[in-house]
């Protein structure tokens, strides 16, 4: 990383319409403005259909806005994708089952033309970071769900992107594993100083992890509120503290839209 960008992510006046001109035309996002400063941990939360995943994919330049602009590290989102400025992690972990853990983490490095020795060194570092050093030669189907997600995170960070985009990465994990993974993710975040944009539909998860929680409302997706979470250092007891509960309540209240029964 050379010079720090003014803002890691800048979404301005973005509208996203799917199936334009067809009978099933749908406005997924309406007039979204969002700025994420460098090194921040920001969560996007909202019910299904609020467009939080779409917003993440717009930042990743995997889809493009119908109106408005998306900038990543002071350049267009497309350019940032081509420059490999971000790493991405999915709920499904999206590990390739035919590659060993080492080969999965290596994949982006291979695409980016790193030499064999550089790759080997970097993979060892990443395995160490996610505490899976003994599992390098295993295949993904030999690992538990939580371990697979750690590999996905290691892979997303392997090529040193400044930005980490995560789409409900812990959504398929059981509660205990999930809390454990949250602690580990924060540890990694503290150590690496990456900017993280994290999509979730778990309120405690959003509060525990983030400095800012962006609450989105559905149909069309809008930003309903932008809640800053200043509850100090996150430790095991954080989840039991009154400050934590107060924030969880605040986010829950913000998620109370009058749509009623469709969730």
């Amino acid at each position, binding site marked *: 990383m050379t010079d720090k960008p003014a803002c890691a992510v800048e979404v301005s006046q973005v509208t996203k319409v799917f199936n334009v001109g067809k009978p099933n035309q749908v406005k997924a996002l309406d007039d979204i403005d969002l700025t994420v400063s460098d090194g921040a941990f920001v969560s996007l939360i909202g019910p299904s259909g609020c467009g939080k995943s779409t917003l993440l994919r717009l930042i990743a330049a995997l889809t493009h806005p119908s109106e408005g602009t998306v900038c990543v590290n002071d350049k267009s989102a497309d350019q940032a994708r*081509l420059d*490999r400025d971000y790493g991405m992690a999915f709920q*499904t972990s999206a590990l390739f089952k*035919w590659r060993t853990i080492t080969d999965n983490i290596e*994949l982006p490095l291979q695409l980016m033309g790193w030499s064999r020795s550089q790759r080997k060194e970097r993979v060892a570092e990443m395995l160490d970071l996610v505490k899976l050093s003994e599992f390098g030669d295993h295949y993904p189907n030999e690992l538990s769900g939580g371990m697979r997600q750690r590999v996905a995170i290691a892979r997303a960070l392997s090529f040193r992107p400044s930005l980490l985009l995560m789409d409900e990465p812990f959504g398929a994990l059981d509660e205990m594993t999930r809390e454990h993974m949250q602690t580990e993710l924060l540890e990694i975040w503290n150590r690496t100083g990456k900017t993280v944009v994290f999509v979730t539909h778990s309120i405690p998860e959003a509060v525990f992890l983030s400095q800012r929680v962006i609450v989105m409302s559905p149909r069309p997706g809008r930003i309903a509120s932008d809640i800053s979470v200043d509850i100090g250092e996150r430790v095991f007891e954080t989840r039991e503290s009154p400050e934590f509960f107060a924030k969880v309540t605040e986010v829950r209240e913000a998620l109370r839209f009058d749509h009623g029964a469709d969730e």
Partner: protein
Amino acid sequence: MARLLRAVGPALIIGIGGLVLWEVSFAILQPEGFVLPAPSEIVAAFVENSDEIWAATKNTGYIVITGLIGGVALGVLWALLVSRFRTANETLTPLSIALNAIPIIALAPIFNAWFGLLSPVSNQSIVVILVFFPVFINTTKGLTEVQPDEIELMRSYAASTWDVSRMVRVPNALPYFFTSLKIASSLAVIGAIVAEYFGGRQDALGPLIVQNAGLTRYADAWAAVLAGSMLGIVLYLLSGIFERASMPWEHAAETAGS
């Protein structure tokens, strides 16, 4: 060893039990020879004519293997084209389906007219066309039915279409391909033998079955059928070995679990 026995044991018991039942019931009922010979008679005929059967199996095997290789190569190539280029998909897929709708075996006499009654090319062509379709359909499915997340991940790395094909689509298609190879290896044997009923070399399994059945030497005819099924089994097992060797990850979990 114990594990191998546990895996093949039940099939072995059923197989041997069936044969014994067949043999014993035939010894008691003594049906006419044209109904079905007893296993011992078939085995005796097999041993007695082993030179002739071996020569015929080699000739048929040549048609089967060359046709199988040709059909598999064509099917895979076609699948790669169709999954890569939209226009290829729109033109080649309906064409292949139309081709498959033809009763392919029915073409044998026509191919004989084209390539010459005794030429191996007509029989090889039957096998190629027969094998092509399952390989094409399955491989195409494997190349195109990739998890959307896996494609998005590759796009997030700004990977080229070639990289996506090479690193995601092709490995994803391997299980589909091997399933089709197993189907194709049996089809190839059927295709070759039936095609031989109509033409091609006379010292092959097809003619051997026809001649022996015509001369009411049913045990000899069945011995040739037995050789044909052994050819099919060998090819099926070979496909399985290739499959295991190409996809070590499919078996990683079970070894880790035990």
